[in-house]
């Protein structure tokens, strides 16, 4: 029995000690990034950008995010653990702004600058927000869609959600541009697939079934766009112009194959890079712009292999 207890103990201790080398000298500059996600390729690209900046500016970063974008309380726990390490600055992409306010205030009170990234935080605590101008980016998608349709036809949107800032901005950016610039294009449906490939596939199939004369579909993130591609492939629909968002292997393949007309890409690497850069600047007392636009591009078969585009695409 004693051996069992010792076994557990030994394990616990060895974990703690094995990870000890990861512990750090106190004078090191430490900037934790608490993200909205971790496993998605998009977030891994953000992390790559952050790592790049960390090396360049000689700071240590960590990058964490909950398993999925519903786990608001898990993200708060991550923020709490990050604060325990007395960081020099914090990067934070809020799943729900309100829920995080007490901890963000705690950070602000302790003089730790907070940089928001990806989607903003509805609060005046963050000193800057590194993000894509999603409204402008989705408007560009609308322009491209209109170009393909020759200015008239029926389109539909598969969005990832109706609550997050990015979901709302991309949907409205697209819809508003169509409404204001292209009176002959009719938006027949806006549906939500939670950014999940399978759910989005079903959503897109339902739209295609209901509208056999559909001219175009816009997917507002990677999962939505891949869902549309799956739906068109499974139903064998023809003449539907698909415009996606973000990248990822499945989406870039669909563009190379000609199944997808093109997609908007954010600059996830830039988001990560600018966040860490801004954190270092804030730490040194420099003033920062409220919004740091990290940029976006439209890519299709013609420019997918350009160095500029390849640098911001992720697989």
């Amino acid at each position, binding site marked *: 029995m004693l051996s069992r207890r010792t076994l557990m103990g030994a394990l616990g201790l060895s974990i*703690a000690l094995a990870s000890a080398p990861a512990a750090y000298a106190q004078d090191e500059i430490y900037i934790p990034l608490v993200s909205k996600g971790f496993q998605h390729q998009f977030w891994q690209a953000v992390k790559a950008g952050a790592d790049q900046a960390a090396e360049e500016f000689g700071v240590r970063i960590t990058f964490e995010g909950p398993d999925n974008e519903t786990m608001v309380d898990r993200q708060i726990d991550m923020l709490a*653990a990050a604060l325990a390490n007395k960081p020099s600055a914090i990067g934070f992409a809020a799943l729900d702004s309100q829920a995080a306010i007490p901890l963000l205030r705690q950070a602000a009170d302790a003089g730790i600058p907070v940089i928001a990234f990806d989607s903003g935080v509805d609060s005046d605590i963050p000193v800057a927000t590194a993000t894509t101008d999603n409204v402008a980016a989705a408007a560009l998608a609308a322009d491209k869609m209109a170009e393909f349709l020759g200015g008239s036809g029926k389109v539909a949107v598969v969005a990832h959600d109706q*609550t997050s800032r990015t979901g709302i901005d991309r949907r409205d950016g697209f819809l508003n541009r169509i409404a204001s610039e292209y009176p002959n294009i009719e938006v027949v449906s806006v549906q939500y697939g939670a950014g999940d490939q399978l759910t989005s596939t079903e959503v897109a199939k339902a739209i295609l079934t209901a509208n056999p004369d559909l001219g175009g579909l816009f997917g507002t993130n990677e999962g939505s766009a891949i869902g549309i591609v799956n739906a068109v492939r499974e139903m064998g629909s023809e003449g539907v112009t698909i415009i996606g968002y973000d990248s990822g292997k499945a989406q870039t393949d669909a563009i190379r194959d000609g199944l997808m007309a093109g997609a908007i890409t954010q600059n996830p690497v830039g988001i990560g890079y600018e966040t860490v850069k801004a954190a270092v600047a804030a730490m040194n007392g420099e003033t920062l712009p409220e919004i740091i636009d990290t940029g976006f591009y439209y890519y299709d078969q013609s420019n997918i292999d350009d160095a500029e585009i390849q640098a911001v695409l992720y697989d």
Partner: protein
Amino acid sequence: MTTTTPEAPRSALSRIVAAGTHQRVLAFASLIVLLIGFSIASPNFMQTSNMIAILQATSVNGVLAIAVTLVIITGGIDLSVGTMMTFCAVITGVVLTYAGMPLPLGVMAAVLTGAACGACSGTFVAKMAIPPFIATLGMMLILKGLSLVISGTRPIYFNDTPGFSEISRGSLIGEIIPAVPIPNGVLILFIVAAVTAYILNRTVLGRYCFALGSNEESVRLSGVNTDRWKIAIYALAGSIVGIAGLLIASRLNSAQPALGLGYELEAIAAVVIGGTSLSGGRGSILGSLIGALIMAVLTNGLRVLSVAQEWQTVVTGAIIILAVYADMMRRKKVK
């Protein structure tokens, strides 16, 4: 080393108690070892604010684990606790924010909604003889869907009920002893644990809980209405889940309708680490509480040490397997 006493065969009850005690000691010892280990590894781990963060992180999972413990002791399983918690939070949101009713009604709504949901699961299991795994899997999806429908998939905020966030975030203890501002959520966790442990060990309901898990048929043959007791236990577990719903909603100052999936597995993991047997008839609330603390300490500690997130997950999984293995080896020896 001498847990097998050769003299006089002990009663079933005392064996249960002894077995439970041992596993709790084992779990408690691992908790202490983890705390010491992390403290040595990082100077930032053992500070008041971080300990409070760990307790805060334990509160919701701890309460869920307590609820699941009851069901698991009867030989069942409850996969619906995560989304049921969300459903209770959403109903509270409807009562407080949409209908503008006073705070106590919102609190009651959460607990009663939980009890009603639990009674439903219990009825499916007892009266309709649907295996608990399937019945609660169904409930899990039903409640997830209903949460989304009722809330219109948008979070419901509690800004109009100023006292609401105090349920979890406020600190009564901190007002008395300012140096240790332990949040009310943690206080509630311990109260729930104490009350549930009392019910389990000192009341008829608790006795039937163990009896159903040990040998349901013999309980039935001795003339007890097992269906009724089973439904009562599921309802009690449900009302505890309602409290978890209050805690998470208060902590986030909002009912997040999409949240909830995955929380049931973490609760079950805490229960198992705490030494409650998945085959029923054996378990303890204290064990589950310690189990939940171990999970929170582990997660927080690995984060404070900046262990890569991929590895955090691997370690947590390994700990679960190891904990159950240690428990099984111990039981084999007892036999």
